[in-house]
């Protein structure tokens, strides 16, 4: 007996040491996840994600994993710069791989379980952080959130008190390294940035090997008034991997968040973004770039809610699609009655590199305020043959010319990243992915 079970099997009888909350709350969430159930083929919001057969699949609950190889670790790590990092393999924190240097007073970064112990020991910040768990990801309505909280092995937490500016980016590397058995992993990140504080947080997710896995990631971010956060997320999955990842962001008055997600590979990747502009003058930027080939599918869902006046939101999504890959973008903007002078922009562009690739954009605007600027646009096209000929006529070989143009198509996405340490690693990733696809 190898111990693999279905999702329902795990939820019905969770192992002792699983879950981020204890006792009755965990039992309640596990039951809630069972009630909500996995999305079915009839579920309109999920019809493009490929989760078929997941309910029947026997999965190991992530546990002890092999030590990652150096390239797996460094693929997404900036070279020659110090960053503080947490490394998670198959849902378990690897203390020997973590590098957390001295941080400013009051800042907490690391295992949420360790923080829970510290909270029991009387550390107030740890208790405050834990209190925010689940406050944005709607575990009572969202099955994948309930599943994550009920079964995750551990989580990464970041607490930045008021008025602290973190100089170095913080990195969470989260790898899925399945052995012979299919795997369920549930990375979790909880970030609270205090008033007028500033941080840059990067999540590097990678899945390797031929064994199937299902990765259910949840990240919650709360920004106090006047705070600044840049959130970078890179997801590089194997063709056998399926991923649902949710980023839940709440931004208080005058605070700014920029969130960038780079997706490559994967059999099916569902990215959900929930952005709440909760205080006057808040600003949120959500960017997504996908570089896909083979049979990969990316299903991006955004849900941007303007709750307060004078807020600005920007959603920019780009997909570069080779072979038989697919991209769906469903962008929802909700402007509440009080959110006067909202400025919301949404754009999607798809670049099809083959006749069999497909891209679909579905804007959904719901505007209840009357003084609002809200625009959206979507384009889907292929590489311009005139530009390609122009480049070739100057001596640039066809494959290189194509890559140059593809890179140009997404260069503005890289240009949006402000954390300078991360620009080169991202550029390398994009260049390498394009080279592999060409």
């Amino acid at each position, binding site marked *: 007996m190898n111990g693999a079970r279905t999702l329902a099997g795990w939820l019905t009888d969770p192992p002792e040491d699983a879950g981020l909350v204890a006792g009755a709350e965990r039992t309640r969430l596990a039951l809630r996840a069972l009630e909500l159930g996995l999305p079915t083929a009839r579920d309109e919001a999920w019809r493009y994600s490929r989760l078929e057969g997941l309910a029947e699949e026997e999965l190991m609950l992530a546990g002890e994993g092999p030590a990652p190889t150096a390239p797996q670790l460094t693929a997404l790590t900036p070279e020659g710069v110090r960053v503080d990092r947490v490394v998670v393999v198959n849902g378990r924190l690897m203390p020997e791989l973590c590098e957390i240097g001295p941080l400013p007073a009051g800042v907490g970064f690391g295992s949420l379980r360790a923080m829970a112990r510290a909270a029991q020991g009387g550390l107030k910040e740890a208790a405050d952080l834990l209190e925010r768990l689940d406050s944005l990801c709607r575990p009572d309505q969202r099955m994948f959130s309930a599943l994550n909280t009920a079964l995750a092995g551990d989580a990464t937490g970041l607490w930045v008190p008021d008025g602290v500016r973190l100089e170095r980016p913080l990195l969470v590397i989260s790898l899925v390294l399945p052995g012979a058995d299919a795997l369920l992993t549930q990375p979790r990140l909880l970030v609270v940035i205090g008033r007028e504080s500033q941080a840059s947080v990067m999540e590097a997710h990678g899945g390797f090997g031929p064994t199937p896995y299902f990765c259910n990631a949840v990240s919650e971010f709360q920004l106090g008034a006047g705070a600044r956060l840049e959130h970078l997320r890179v997801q590089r999955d194997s063709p056998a991997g399926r991923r649902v990842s949710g980023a839940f962001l709440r931004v208080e008055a005058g605070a700014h968040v920029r969130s960038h997600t780079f997706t490559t590979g994967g059999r099916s990747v569902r990215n959900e973004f929930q952005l709440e502009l909760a205080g006057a003058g808040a600003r949120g930027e959500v960017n997504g770039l996908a570089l896909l080939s083979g049979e990969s599918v990316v299903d991006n869902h955004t849900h941007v809610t303007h709750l307060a006046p004078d807020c600005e939101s920007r959603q920019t999504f780009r997909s570069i699609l080779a072979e038989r890959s697919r991209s769906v973008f469903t962008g929802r903007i909700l402007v509440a009655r009080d959110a006067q002078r909202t400025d919301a922009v949404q754009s999607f562009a798809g670049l099809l590199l083959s006749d069999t690739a497909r891209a679909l954009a579905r804007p959904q605007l719901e505007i209840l305020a009357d003084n609002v600027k809200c625009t959206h646009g979507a384009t889907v096209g292929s590489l311009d043959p005139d530009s390609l*000929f122009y480049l070739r006529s100057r001596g640039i070989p066809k494959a290189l010319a194509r890559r140059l143009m593809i890179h140009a198509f997404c260069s503005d996405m890289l240009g949006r990243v402000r954390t300078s340490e991360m620009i080169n690693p991202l550029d390398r990733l994009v260049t390498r992915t394009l080279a592999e696809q060409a």
Partner: protein
Amino acid sequence: MLQIHNLHASVAGKEILKGLTLDVKPGEIHAIMGPNGSGKSTLANVLAGRDGYEVTAGDVLYQGRNLLDREPEERAGDGIFLAFQYPVEIPGVPNLYFLRMALNAQRRHRGKPEIPAEDFLRLVSEKLKLVHLEDGLQKRAVNEGFSGGEKKRNEIFQMLILEPRLALLDETDSGLDIDALKIVAEGVNAMRSPDFSAVVVTHYQRLLDYIVPDQVHVLAGGRIVKTGGRELALELEKCGYGWLTQEVTA
């Protein structure tokens, strides 16, 4: 240098070039004039290797070798340069980055090492002066937001950097003011040497005051219908093409 014999080519199933013959020797400059739609750009595009043109008969030798089975980038590497009638804007590709990539690709093609960065920059600032283009433009994306005249001068600038053996200039003078016209002509004249040739497509004899051609051809109805010296251009300017096309159909 370039020998075109009885070239027939069609676009979208329509025959545009109908038996064109032209011989350009090393060091020579040939001007091609002719009415709109007569096939001048078609000829330039066929020579540069653009997709969508079907050669149905005839042959083209470049430096003694069949040109038509070569890829566009190979032709460029072998020294052919096309200055586009309508230079393309390519957002997201910085001009200098593109140009350095092109130069290095051509050098690799010729078995030469890549140009060191500082040599490239020196070359750029030297040639920019010749075409009176501001440095700032080169940091922008290829031709993006360039004025019509800037685009044309940028073509000449690229030619000066890439140093082709055979330049095909497709109406590089169109839309230029008199100063810009002189700049373009100076650019071409700077290239003149016993092993540089050019085919200059133009509607205006004025350009030929500055770039003195060895021969002037009239292309009409897909063929060279008349060839002469500089004075032919003057005649055309005065009398138009009407009398020539009548000669052809007669």
